[in-house]
């Protein structure tokens, strides 16, 4: 059998994604360090753009760079991207952390007790563990404003449901595999759900529709029903308090 070329790949590599995009691949694995470089490359291209780049899409371990071939050819752009990659520096300073208030359990957190049972923990310990971690936004994708959060404590890693549920509401807090999530729009999902937040990570009507971007940090803070009600009211008034801290 022929051994696929894939077996010999070395990183970084730049591959064509058609005739109007290239993908800068830094690895074929998920890891924090790689993702930091992806985010740093996207930021460097934002700060000092290369002519012809239309937009970029940071993901776990690669950066999609869309371009206009009438302005820059893919071959030339690839060379310039490799040069740029060699000059980027990862600067941890200036990262921000969103504090997400969570009302655990309830209808939205339909899987909380079952998950605690599965993990042989009390609900209280599970909530404490989920709220103790520092999460990092590896990428935004799948749906508008949907953040893939790395940093879920290993004990909470949970396989997805065999069959997805048809509709999960926005702002529901989930766990899928090794990742944590905050649902951004309603839709089908096979993840497990443990609570909800009054805040909306995505609201197309808001002046800044997206709360999170790749590279941000997130932590969860447990709240009680009365605080959730107060925050729900503030969100309905369009003036929710959004809490950021330095990461």
């Amino acid at each position, binding site marked *: *059998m022929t051994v696929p070329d894939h077996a010999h790949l070395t990183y970084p590599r730049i591959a064509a994604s*058609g005739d109007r*995009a290239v993908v800068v691949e830094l690895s074929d*694995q998920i890891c924090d360090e790689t993702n930091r470089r992806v985010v740093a490359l996207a930021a460097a291209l934002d700060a000092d753009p290369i002519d012809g780049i239309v937009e970029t*899409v940071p993901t776990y371990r690669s950066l999609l760079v869309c371009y206009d071939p009438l302005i820059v050819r893919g*071959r030339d752009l690839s060379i310039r991207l490799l040069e740029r990659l060699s000059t980027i520096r990862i600067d941890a300073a200036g990262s921000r952390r969103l504090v997400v208030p969570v009302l655990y359990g309830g209808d939205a957190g339909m899987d909380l007790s079952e998950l605690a049972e599965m993990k042989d923990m009390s609900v209280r310990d599970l909530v404490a563990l989920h709220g103790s971690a520092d999460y990092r936004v590896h990428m935004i994708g799948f*749906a508008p404003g949907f953040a893939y959060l790395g940093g879920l404590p290993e004990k909470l890693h949970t396989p997805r449901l065999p069959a997805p549920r048809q509709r999960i509401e926005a702002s529901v807090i989930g766990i899928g595999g090794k990742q944590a999530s905050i649902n*951004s729009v309603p839709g089908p999902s096979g993840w497990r759900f443990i609570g909800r937040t009054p805040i909306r990570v995505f609201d197309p009507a808001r002046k800044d529709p997206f709360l999170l971007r790749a590279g941000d940090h997130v932590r969860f803070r447990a709240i009680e029903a009365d605080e959730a009600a107060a925050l729900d009211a503030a969100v309905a008034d369009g003036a929710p308090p959004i809490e950021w801290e330095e990461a």
Partner: protein
Amino acid sequence: MTRLIVKQAGPMMSVQDRGRSGLLQMGVSGCGPMDVTAMRIANRLVGNDEGDALIEFAHVGGQFEVSEPVLLAVTGGAVSVTIDGTPVATWESYRLDPGQTLRIGALTNAVWGYLALSGGIRTEPVLGARSTHLRSAIGGLEGRRLSAGDVLPLGATQETALAAPRKILRKPLSRSAGPIRVIEGPQAGHFDEAAWQQFLRGPFTVSASRDRMAQMLDGPKITAAAGHDVVSDGTVMGSIQVPASGRPIVLMAERQTSGGYAKIATVASVDLPRLAQALTGCQIRFKRVSRDHAEDLWIAHTRALDEVLTSLDHGAGATMSEGGMP
């Protein structure tokens, strides 16, 4: 304010403009038209900017009325169009007055049709565009498909525009019947020589499982020796991903911004409208070309189309044939 009244609507009709730009990194699909060439021509035939919002429909049009005189043009493919029962041509502009009924029938040789109206559709932009994204229910009219009874605001049409000579694309768009050209994809190396041979030999049948998001293809099973699942990365319109079923899926205008299946190839931009317009059940083949060549084709196509669009504005009429292009 001029209004477009939808009296009857086909099953898949939505407001689209040039699409959203710059928000892929926020998980927002680019949307926009399935056949960007037909959309640009439709808009320019009625004197709009080529990226203005218009109506896109799949297979079947509908019936429409207006509250003020406007210019209209229908493009995309061959379809019966009448104004108060009198047949009018596609790829040409006509005047529609209040009290008249515009009827658009079923496309016979294409899938996606466009109805442009002078002034453009002026629904509220969402995230910088009027394009409808059905899955996340944003843009267009309430983020949904259009249906009978809907009323859409239109921009103003100048008296001089109504009085000007009609615009005509002299030779309707003809598309070549050759293979769909593809460039090796980011995970081309996941597929061994045998898989590539099968992929290029095909043929594939355009499946009825198709929408604005994706086009499924039926044909030989394509196996990724190095695995069908990858760490999710960015997608483009035309990405051909192959899940473990071995059945290729071509991502289209309303695709998700990232995906975790191995992408064997990407459709050349110049052939994207042709694939979108391929009738369900027809057979297609793929041909591998270099990225450089695909870029050359796209640049030549873009320049030729620009010339066609400019000539429309100068009243000379224009001819367009994608089949004749290199």
